């Protein structure tokens, strides 16, 4: 269980996260929904152990995580960021990107790594003939799949997707989300998805947290439809999403 206990983070005068306690369940999909500036990305960074909270604790299996022990925990919590291109080293080839964690974290030897890379490519539907290409030569979708494959290669307990689908076009997003749903069914990994898109949230979530201005204002278990939201703010978000859908109707 990965959880935060009353965690607060301030940037100067601004309180980004205000005493938040939430849980990322093992083997399930947790989603944090909110508008820009709600503090969800900050929360994601703290959960991926990139930043430390000002107050409160982050607990991994009831053990407090400290930056120093983060090395051991690093493998267990992986991150997929919003912009795939900038989260990849431009001078690496696609194969090297996946190879590195297999070598460093999983300590596999060469033949094992080669096999595993093939497996992972199949899992994320990444074209194997592109493995030899440099990262900059891949399309946006391929780069995203590569990032996911890299995260999976560490066989983590939790993967955090920080607005990872916002930049994708709708069909690609659907494709990747469907793929992720399938993958998650096969592995025992907990997903934490940070998004501002309610459709994504509804499609993927086993649990939804709604965030606003640094606080969690609602928690939904196994949401079935948009009508499940109770709080006023959540309902506003639903309405805004509806307007978007209506406006797009031809």
């Amino acid at each position, binding site marked *: 269980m990965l959880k935060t206990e009353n965690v607060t983070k301030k940037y100067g005068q601004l309180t980004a996260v205000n005493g938040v306690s939430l849980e990322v369940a093992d083997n399930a999909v947790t989603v944090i929904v909110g508008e820009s500036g709600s503090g969800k990305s900050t929360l994601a960074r703290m959960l991926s152990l990139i930043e430390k909270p000002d107050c409160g604790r982050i607990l991994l299996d009831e053990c407090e995580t400290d930056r120093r022990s983060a090395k051991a925990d690093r493998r267990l919590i992986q991150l997929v*960021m919003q912009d795939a291109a900038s989260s990849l080293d431009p001078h690496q080839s696609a194969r090297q990107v996946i190879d590195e964690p297999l070598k460093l974290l999983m300590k596999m030897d060469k033949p094992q790594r080669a096999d595993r890379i093939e497996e992972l490519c199949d899992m994320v539907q990444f074209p194997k003939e592109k493995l030899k290409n440099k990262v900059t030569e891949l399309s946006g979708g391929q780069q995203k799949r590569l990032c996911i494959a890299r995260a999976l290669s560490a066989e983590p307990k939790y993967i955090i997707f920080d607005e990872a689908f916002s930049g994708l076009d709708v069909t690609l997003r659907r494709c990747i989300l469907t793929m992720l749903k399938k993958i998650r069914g096969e592995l025992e990994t907990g997903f934490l998805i940070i998004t501002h898109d309610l459709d994504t949230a509804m499609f993927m979530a086993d649990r939804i947290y709604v965030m606003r201005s640094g606080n969690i204002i609602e928690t939904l278990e196994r949401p079935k439809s948009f009508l499940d939201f109770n709080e006023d703010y959540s309902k506003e978000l639903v309405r805004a999403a509806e307007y978007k859908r209506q406006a797009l109707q031809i």
Partner: protein
Amino acid sequence: MIHKILRKPQAVIGLLMMLTVFAVMVFAPAFAPNDPEKINIMQKFAEPSEKYPLGTDDMGRCIASRLIYGARVSMSAALPTIAAIAVISVLLATVCAYIGGIVDRLFVIVSDIFMALPPFLVAMTLVGLFESKALSIVISIAAAMWVWNAQVVRTYVIREKNKPYIITCRMSGCSQMRIIMRHIIPNIFPHLLVLYSTGLSGVIIMISGYAFLGLGFETGTPEWGAMLVGANKLVFSHPELIVYPGLCILFAAAGFNLFGEALRDICDPKEN
């Protein structure tokens, strides 16, 4: 990247010029028609002939040979100098920029002080320090120039270090050392190449300046700058003795500059 380089005419020209200089430097004995240091007062200021393709200087030495060997002398002082500058600046800048915190602050303050001294000054005061004149030159120029280079390298490292992919690398299990060696340095390498190739041309010019002032090389050494010593007297009588060494310096330095600047355009294709 090699393809991009070969596609740019300026880069290719610069590269060819650089290679020419290296070739002359390595194969000087094969190219030079005579012994560059052989004095022959009877033949001083001779006209260009078959034996002396460019004539002789005031001591009867073959000018062409001196120019050719001059490549060797200049480059054998310039190359170690730029190598030393590169090693020191990259090491220091990378370590300080990556560790950050107090170490980095200290570095900035110290380099501010060093940069307050014009490099020529620093180099001049150090030049007489060592027995070996060539070593003096290398060390004094390196001591003068490392700060300026280190500051630039530091900026590159910091820029790279703050990019998102570094976080991904940490997550993939990379140690700090591995990130520096396998991720940061390969990505700033083109910029370093630009810095040090244009730097090399600057060093060549600096060295010639020293030789011109009579500091640093034994008198009579065939070095392009040294060949201009006492050229004031020759301005009216034998101006070509002034023109030739300068043209050599121009060729060598321009080669490195052209290549470096072309490379810079490739790496930072912003407005160019």
